[in-house]
Every structure is written in C-alpha cells, then in structure tokens.
C-alpha cells in the first residue's frame, strides 16, 4: 500500500437515480498527504458529484474509490468522519446556536454513545478555533458572523474532526478578496504544517493555480486535464472548458488566466 495515499479514484463513473446521463465519466484522482488538489470546471461539470462519489454518497456505475487503502463503500459514516472533514457548499442553521457548539459538532464522530465531551475533545476544539483565528468568536451566535467569519468557523469544525483529508466545496464563494485569500492561506498552512491532504473545489482558476499542487479540470463530467497547474492550465484547455477566449500569463511561476473582451466590444 502507498502509505501517503489518502484518496484514490480510478475510472469513476456515476449517475444519480433517475438522471438521464452520467454525472461523472471515468474520472481518476490520486491525492497524497501534504498535497492540495484543486478541482475546476464550469457549473454542472460534476465537481460536487466528485466529492460525493469520493465519500460514498452516490453509488458508482463503474470504477472504484479507495480511502486510506479501503474501498469507500466499506467505511461507516462515523469512521469516515474521523478521517475526512468536509465543508459542504450549503448547510442549514435550523435553530440558533453559538460558535463553540458548532465547532463541537466536529468532535461527534469521536464521542462514544454514552460518554461525554472529554479533555481531549475540548483540547481539539480549542486548537481548531485557534488555527482558524476564531477563538475570539467562540461565544458569538452563528447568525451574527460575517460571511468570512462563518467560513472560518466551519473550517474550524472540520479541523476539530482531526481529519487526514479536508474537502472544501467552493469555500470562498461570495467572500471578499481579503477573506478569500485568508481562507486559501489557512488551508495551505494546514496542508504544509500538518501533512493534511486537501481537495478544494473552486471557481477561482487563478487562486487554484497559485495554491494547488495539482489541478483537475472537469467538463460535462469528464476529466479534461489533470496535473501540475503549469502543465494543465493552457490557453487552449481553459478557453475550451470555460467557453470563453482567454490568455495565460505566468506569475511567480504559476499560470494565471485572463479572460479577453469580445472583439467587437473594444475596437
């Protein structure tokens, strides 16, 4: 077994019940400890489905998924939650709650049925709050937080799970520049300092190219390209996938994409 390998998808094809076509077609991915992979692609290209397939929430039509060397469908939800922390795109807050309670939910997979919250749980909770610069928010109500603070709290909840893999589904959608950069830096720090793996779904091509070790580009459920940002993010690929003319220019050794204006608009 490849010791550093956290999650591997091999030729994964899947389809939602009652759907007319496959949502993913033959997608592969290998993510190791200490790596950050970004998943790019237009809306409806299968990015979120990829996460669900990797974590055993949609049945596979073909291919296989392994997490830490074990087939994904053999993991119980509780065991999986001890090694993978997820920030889903959307979640509800049905009843008012405080930040500390929210982050404590990250400890649930570690708690026994009858046991209470122990010293180890409290320590993990505080570490997660500090790591996400959210210790000062601990006693605030969730609904009083700004968008950036809220995402930091959710990341703290995922870190409180003490996972080996972080999965983030568009964590910076609707955040301003500073909060977006802070979140990307925070994730990169966790990956570098603690050897976590991270799978990041985003629409921000340029930030993905700056922060990620590997990039996977999806279009209509198929992997168009996979590899280091400089190898994958070419003018032809980007223009084809995003259906818009672009140029690629290098910044600090990473490719950066600049969309072009339509010709007739700037004569």
């Amino acid at each position, binding site marked *: 077994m490849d010791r550093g390998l956290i999650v591997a998808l091999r030729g994964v094809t899947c389809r939602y019940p009652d759907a007319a076509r496959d949502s993913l077609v033959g997608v592969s991915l290998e993510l190791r400890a200490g790596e950050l992979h970004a998943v790019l692609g237009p809306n409806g290209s299968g990015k979120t489905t990829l996460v669900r397939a990797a974590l055993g929430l949609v049945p596979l039509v073909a291919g296989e998924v392994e997490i830490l060397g074990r087939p994904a469908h053999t993991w119980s939800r509780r065991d999986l939650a001890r090694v993978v922390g997820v920030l889903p795109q959307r*979640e509800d807050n049905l009843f008012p709650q405080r930040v500390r309670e929210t982050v404590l939910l990250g400890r649930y997979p570690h708690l026994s049925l009858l046991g209470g919250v122990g010293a180890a749980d409290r320590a993990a909770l505080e570490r997660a709050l500090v790591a996400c610069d959210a210790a000062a928010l601990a006693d605030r109500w969730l609904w009083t937080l700004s968008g950036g603070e809220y995402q930091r709290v959710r990341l703290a909840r995922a870190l409180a799970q003490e996972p080996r893999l972080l999965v983030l589904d568009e964590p910076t959608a609707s955040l301003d520049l500073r909060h977006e950069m802070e979140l990307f830096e925070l994730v990169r720090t966790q990956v570098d300092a603690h050897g976590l793996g991270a799978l990041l779904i985003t629409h921000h091509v340029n930030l993905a190219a700056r922060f990620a070790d590997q990039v996977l580009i999806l279009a209509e459920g198929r992997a168009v390209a996979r590899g280091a940002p400089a190898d994958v993010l070419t003018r032809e690929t980007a223009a084809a996938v995003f259906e818009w003319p672009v140029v690629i220019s290098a910044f600090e050794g990473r490719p950066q994409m600049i969309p072009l204006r339509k010709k007739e608009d700037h004569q």
Partner: protein
Amino acid sequence: MKYLVLAGAALATLAAALLVGPANLPLADLASSPIVWQLRLPRAVLAFLVGGALGVAGTSLQALVRNPLADPFLLGLSGGAGLGAVAAIALHLPGPWALPLAAFVGAVGAMALVYRLGLVGGGELDPRILLLGGVAVGALAGAITTAIVSLAEATELRNAFLWLWGGFSGASWTTVLVMLAYAPLPLGVLIAAARPLDLLALGEEPAQYLGADVRRLKRVVYLAASLLTAAAVAVAGVIGFVGLVVPHVCRLLWGRLHRTLLPTAFLTGGVLLAAADTLARTVVAPRELPVGIVTALLGVPVFAFLLRRWTVG
C-alpha cells in the same frame, strides 16, 4: 442544576395535583384517602408520563423533519387515532380497553401509511413528504371521523368529541403501568439518537459528513417518535401544543443540543401536562374540561409569541 429545578417543579406539580380536587379533603386525611391513591396520584403520574412522551416526540420530530413548527400530531397520528376511537365508540366495542386499543391501532395505521408515502427513490425517507403526507392522511382520517360523528347519536357524539380533546379521567394504575412498560424503549432509542439529531439540523448531507447514518436515523427516529405519540394518544386522546411548545421553551432555556434537550423536554412536558390536567379538573369543578382545551389556551399564546420571535429574529 436545571435537572434539580425541573425535579423540584415535578414534585411541586405532583403535590398540587394530590392536594386539590372537587372532593375537599382535609389535609390530615390525604395520606390515607383512596381518592388520593386510586384517583389523583395515578392520574397525575399518567399526565406526567404522557406530557413527557409528547415533549420528547415533538423535539425529535422537529429535528427529523427539520421544521421548527412541526408537532407530533402533524404527521397524521391524531387523525388516525381519532378515527380509531370514534369508530370504537360508534360500534359500541365492549370493554375498558376497546377505545385506547382502537385509537392506538388507528394511530399506528396512519403512521404506517405516512411512512410508506414518505419512502421515495431507493427507500430513502423524505422528511418533506412525511410532513405533507401526514397532513393529507390526517385530513382524510378527519373527514371519515366527521362522517361517523355526523351519523352518530347525541350521547355518542358528545363522548367522541370530548375524547378528541383529550383527558385523563379514565386514568388508573393499570394505564400507568402500561405506559411505564411501553415508553422506555422508544424514549431510550430517541435519547441514544441525541447527537445524530444535532447533526441533522445542518441538513442531511452535512450530517453524513459529520458521521451520522442519516438513512437509518430518519427511520428509527420517525418510528420511535410515532410509537411514543401513538401510546400517548391512546391513553389520553389528542392533546395539542405540548409537543410543539415544550421543545421551543427548552431550546430557549437550555440550548439546542439534544443530549440536554430530550431529557429536559421530557420533564418540562410532564410538569406542564400534569399542571394543565390539575387545572382542567378543578377550574370548573365538579365538572371537567378536556385537558387539550387547557393546553391550547395556554399553548397558543406561547406559540404566537414564539412565532413572532422567529420571524423578527
């Protein structure tokens, strides 16, 4: 601390229930009076158990259907139980257990029907369909109930109508023992599901990412909460607002985590219903109000206040 307060409130309610009543007993005779031992005490204990069951069922169902305005009877159970009870009255089924059994059967029948409706693609229970299916099944049962009542004779009609509003005048130690034997299993199942229920408030997908087996959880919680409600309705009729208001009061006072919420909802529901029953049998003594009227008169203002708070906050 909160448990001390609630235990104190429970004892005080129980004491009040034993002390007051239409038969004006001198204080010295209380301990030896059969009225206290055979009527007031079992009645107070039963009201407490039913109130607790409704509190816990309401709390878990609100978490399950992820709707803060859900009530244990919203899922069609009251309609089914009412139909069963009214059918038993109309058919003159004999014996003291005919009515509660018929009500229980009606409630479980409605539960099974709603459950079946709620199962969608791949055997997954859809809470939204549960809620709508419950309303539909309840309406259907209500229509049939009304049809039976409209054909019944006047005394039967009065009995059926009073039963539908709930009451504990038929309470006995046997009923208490039946409830004591029946309730611990569904109560235990729900309390064991306390932490996954916390997670469910985030939504089904996020709950799974935090380790909850949502598919199983939804089935277990729906069945346990419904069976608890079915027993409550069988022994006491339809008592509204306890299962709706108690969870909110407890959430406001002690937070939203179900490990605390479920036990406190049990105690609060018990205190509330035992107190409401004491009022129901004393305010117009020697006659009695159905206890559901008292809980509605007390519950509706509290609920209106909560609704306002919900929309403003």
